[in-house]
C-alpha cells in the first residue's frame, strides 16, 4: 500500500532533530497529562512514536484517498446551491476520511478535543496533504483558525468553538480580503457595529476571495471603530455559520486549486463575537493568523514541489525517445536531480522554521500558566525573532521554487504534460497561487528583509557555521565565500540608507540569505545522515551561482538607476489613487 509518510524518510529525519526534544517536553509539560488522558504520551520517545503512527495514518489517507480523488475534484469543483457551497464529491470523501481518523484540530490541546501536537508533525501532515491535492490542503489546513481562537479567544469562546473541530469536523475560514483591500488589509471596510439592544456585534459589508468562505466557523476582520481608516480601527470577530446571515454571492472560477471554493460573501447584520480586544484585529491577531497561514503555504509549496518532482521522475524513467529512456539524457537528469536537491533544501528550511515557531509558541502558551524564568524568556524572544523572518522566508522561497519545479516537471513531460493526461498539468496550475496568496512574494520580501537589516539571518548563518564539524570541507569554504559576499553587498545597500533602494533589492537580498541558510542546513543534515551530503554539495553549487548573479546585479547598480525604472505615468497614476 502506498503511504506518503513512509515513502519520505525525511519526515522521520526532521522529527529527530535535537531541538524537537525540548519542543515536545515543553508542549507536553513534562508529560503530566498521561494521568488524565489515556492517549497522552508518557515520555519523549512515546510522543515521537505517536507522531509517526499518526503521520502514517495521514500518509495512507493521502495516498489511497486524497491523491486518487484529486483529478475528479479538480474537474468537478465546488458548486453554489441555495446559498450553500457544495464541495466536489471527492472533497467530501477526503474530509470525511481525515475527520473519521480524528485528524481535525491536531494541534489543539486535549481538553478541547485536539491531539496536542506541536506544529512540526502537523506541518508534516499538511505537506503530505498538499502533495496529494494542493487545493484540498486549504480546506483541511484552515484548522489553523482554531489555533488563533485558542491563542486569543476568551475561555468561553474556546469552550464553545474549539471542541467542534475534532468532534464535529467543523471547517474554518479566514475572512480578511475585500475588493479594495487585498494585500493592503489596513483598508478593510466591512463594518462591525455593536448593537446595544441585543448586546451583540453585527457585521455588514462585502468580502472577496475568501477561501472556504462558507465554513462553519469564520474569523472575520472588520472595522469596529467608525471614522478610522487604518489598521488601528480593525478588530477580529468569530462568525458562526449557524446564524445564516451571510450570503455567498459568487464562487470564483480559477486557474488552479479548483477544489477549494473561493467565495464572495455579503454580510447582512451578521451576528459576531469579538475576539480579544477591539482595535487589535489586524495588528495582533490577523498577523498571528497570517503567520501560521504562511507557514501553511510553505508546507503546501513543498508538498507541490515534491509531487511535481515525483511526477517528473516517474515519467522520465518510463518515457523512451531516441532508443533510451529520457532520464538518461543530461538535460533531463540535470533538471530532475536539481528538483530533488531543491526539495531537500526547502524541506530542511520548512522544518527548521517550524521548530522555531514551535519554540516560540510553546513558551507563549506556557506563559498563560506560569511566569517564565529569565532564561526561558530570553529563549522565547530569540525564537520569536527567528520565526518572524524565517516564516516569510520559507513562504517566499518555497512558493517560488514549487512554481519553477512544476514548470520543469511539465517540461520533462513534453507535449503530454500540456495535455490533461497526467497530474502535472493540475500540479502546475495549483502551484501558481502559492506565491500570491497569504501575502505575495513581494510582500514576503518586505517582511523578511528585517532578517537582513537586523542581522538575524547573518547571526543564524554564523551559528550554523560553528556547528559544521569538518572545518576544512570544500562546501564550508564555499559557504564562507557566499556569506562574505552576502554580508558585504547587504551592508552596502543598507549603508546607503535609501529605503526605496532597499525595497528594490529586498527580494534579492532575502533570497541570498535563504540560499546560504538552506546550504548550511543541508550540510548539517549531511552530518546526521550521509544521504544529504550529495544534496548539500549540489545545492551549494546551484545557490552559489544564483547568489553571484544577484551580487553582480546589486553591485553594478547605482542608486540613481532607480529613476531609469520609473515610468513617466507614475505621478499621474498616484493622483488618481
Amino acid at each position, binding site marked *: *500500500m502506498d503511504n506518503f509518510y513512509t515513502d519520505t524518510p525525511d519526515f522521520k529525519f526532521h522529527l529527530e532533530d535535537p531541538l524537537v526534544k525540548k519542543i515536545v517536553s515543553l508542549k507536553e509539560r513534562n508529560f503530566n497529562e498521561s494521568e488524565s488522558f*489515556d492517549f497522552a504520551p508518557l515520555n519523549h520517545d512515546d510522543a515521537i512514536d505517536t507522531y509517526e503512527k*499518526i503521520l502514517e*495514518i495521514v500518509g495512507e489517507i493521502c495516498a489511497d484517498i486524497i491523491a486518487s480523488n484529486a483529478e475528479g475534484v479538480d474537474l468537478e469543483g465546488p458548486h453554489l446551491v441555495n446559498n450553500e457551497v457544495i464541495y466536489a464529491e471527492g472533497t467530501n470523501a477526503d474530509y470525511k476520511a481525515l475527520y473519521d*481518523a480524528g485528524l481535525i484540530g491536531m494541534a489543539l490541546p486535549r481538553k478541547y478535543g485536539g*491531539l496536542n501536537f506541536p506544529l512540526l508533525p502537523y506541518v508534516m501532515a499538511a505537506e503530505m496533504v498538499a502533495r496529494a491535492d494542493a487545493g484540498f490542503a486549504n480546506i483541511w489546513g484552515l484548522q489553523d483558525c482554531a489555533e488563533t481562537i485558542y491563542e486569543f479567544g476568551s475561555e468561553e469562546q474556546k469552550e464553545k468553538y474549539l471542541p467542534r473541530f475534532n468532534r464535529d469536523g467543523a471547517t474554518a475560514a479566514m475572512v480578511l480580503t475585500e475588493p479594495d483591500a487585498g494585500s493592503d488589509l489596513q483598508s478593510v471596510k466591512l463594518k462591525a457595529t455593536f448593537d446595544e439592544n441585543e448586546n451583540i456585534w453585527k457585521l455588514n459589508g462585502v468580502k472577496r476571495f475568501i477561501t472556504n468562505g462558507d465554513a462553519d466557523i469564520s474569523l472575520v476582520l472588520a472595522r469596529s471603530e467608525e471614522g478610522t481608516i487604518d489598521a488601528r480601527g480593525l478588530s477580529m470577530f468569530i462568525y458562526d455559520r449557524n446564524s445564516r446571515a451571510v450570503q455567498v454571492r459568487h464562487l470564483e472560477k480559477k486557474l488552479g486549486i479548483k477544489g477549494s471554493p473561493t467565495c464572495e460573501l455579503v454580510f447582512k447584520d451578521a451576528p459576531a463575537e469579538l475576539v480579544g480586544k477591539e482595535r487589535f484585529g489586524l495588528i495582533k491577531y490577523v498577523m498571528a493568523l497570517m503567520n501560521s497561514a504562511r507557514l501553511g503555504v510553505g508546507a503546501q509549496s513543498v508538498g507541490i514541489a515534491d509531487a511535481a518532482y515525483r511526477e517528473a521522475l516517474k515519467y522520465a524513467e518510463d518515457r523512451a525517445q531516441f532508443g533510451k529512456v529520457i532520464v538518461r539524457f543530461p538535460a533531463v537528469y540535470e533538471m530532475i536531480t536539481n528538483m530533488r536537491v531543491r526539495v531537500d533544501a526547502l524541506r530542511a528550511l520548512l522544518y527548521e522554521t517550524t521548530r522555531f515557531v514551535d519554540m516560540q509558541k510553546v513558551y507563549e502558551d506556557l506563559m498563560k500558566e506560569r511566569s517564565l524564568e529569565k532564561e526561558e524568556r530570553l529563549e522565547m524572544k530569540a525564537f520569536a525573532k527567528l520565526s518572524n523572518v524565517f516564516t516569510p522566508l520559507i513562504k517566499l522561497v518555497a512558493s517560488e521554487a514549487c512554481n519553477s519545479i512544476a514548470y520543469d516537471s511539465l517540461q520533462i513531460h513534453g507535449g503530454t504534460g500540456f495535455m490533461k493526461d497526467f497530474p502535472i498539468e493540475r500540479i502546475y496550475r495549483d502551484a501558481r497561487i502559492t506565491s500570491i496568496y497569504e501575502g505575495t512574494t513581494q510582500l514576503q520580501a518586505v517582511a523578511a528583509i528585517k532578517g537582513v537589516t537586523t542581522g538575524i539571518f547573518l547571526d543564524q548563518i554564523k551559528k550554523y557555521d560553528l556547528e559544521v564539524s569538518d572545518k576544512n570541507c570544500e562546501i564550508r569554504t564555499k559557504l564562507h565565500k557566499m556569506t562574505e559576499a552576502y554580508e558585504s553587498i547587504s551592508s552596502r545597500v543598507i549603508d546607503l540608507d535609501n529605503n526605496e533602494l532597499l525595497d528594490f533589492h529586498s527580494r534579492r537580498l532575502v533570497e541570498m540569505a535563504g540560499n546560504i541558510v538552506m546550504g548550511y542546513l543541508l550540510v548539517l543534515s549531511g552530518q546526521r545522515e550521509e544521504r544529504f551530503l550529495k544534496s548539500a554539495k549540489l545545492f551549494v553549487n546551484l545557490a552559489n551561482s544564483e547568489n553571484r548573479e544577484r551580487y553582480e546585479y546589486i553591485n553594478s547598480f547605482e542608486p540613481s538607476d532607480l529613476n531609469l525604472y520609473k515610468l513617466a505615468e507614475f505621478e499621474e497614476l498616484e493622483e488618481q489613487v
Partner: protein
Amino acid sequence: MRALKIVVLAKQVPDTRHVGPDAMRPDGTVNRPKLQTVFNPDDLHALELALHIKDQIPETKVTVLTMGPKRAADIIREGYYRGADYGVMISDKRFGGADTLATSYTLVKAIQKLGDFDLILGGRQAIDGDTAQVGPQCADKLKIPQITYVDQIVEIKDDEIIARRRLEKGVETVSSPMPCLMTVHGSAPACRSRHAKRVMKYKYARTSTELNSKGTEDFLIDLHKKRSYLTIPEWSVEDIGAEMEKIGLSGSPTKVKSVESIVLTAKESKQLSEDDADIEMMIQELIEKHTIG
C-alpha cells in the same frame, strides 16, 4: 433498535502484494515467518460493517477474535485502532497447522466461551487460502443461519437482520433471524482508517506472551498494571476447552499433496475480420464464457 453483540472473525495473512522468493517452502506450504503480514482484506470489510452498526447503535459492542501465532496480536491492535471494543487472541502452538475444519472448530469453541452474541461477521475468504469455508463451517457448528457474500446491511430489527448479497450476476436481499453469521464480500465499503486517539490509547496493547517476552521494557509492564484494558486476553487449548484430536494438525484432514506453478499461455488464436457480424459474434462468445459482461 437494541444494542448488539458482534464478533468479528479476523485473520492475519501474508501480504501477497509483497511476496519474496522464499515465500514458499519446498513442500509447497507457505513459509509464513518470511512474509510480511496484513489484516485479511475481506475481514477488514467485515470489521467495517460491524463498526457501521455500532455507529448507528452506539451501545453495540464489537469484539475482534483472531487465531494465530504471537505476532497475530497485531490484528487485535488494528481492530482497536479502528474502533473495536474488545479483542481476543486464540494462540497456542497446538492450534498450528489447522485446516478449515480444525479452524472453524477452534473459533466456535472460542465464540462459545465469549458468551451471547447476535451477529458474527467474517470476511468471505482469506487471501492465503481462498477457501471461503471457515465462515460457513462456523455457522454450521453453531447451528445458526448464515448469509454469505454480504456487502450491505439493509436493516436491523429486534431479532432480524436484512442484508444484501453480492452475487455473480446481481444482488439479492435476504433476511435472517439473529443470531446469525455473515461472510462479507470485498465489494462492501472499505474499512475506516485507524483513529488517531485510539492509536494513542491502544498502541501498548499486548498479549501476556508479548509482555513476558525478552526485552519488554519495565514501563510497559507497569502501564499494563494501571490500564488493564491494554492486556489482550489470550486463550489456549485449555481456556476454550477444545479437544486435542479436533484441533491443529491432528484435527485437519486436509493435506497439501503438491503445488505446481502454472504459467498461463494462450492455446489458440482467432483471426477476426473487420466485419460487424464477426465482431458481434466474438462479443457474444465472450459474454457466454463470462470473459466480459
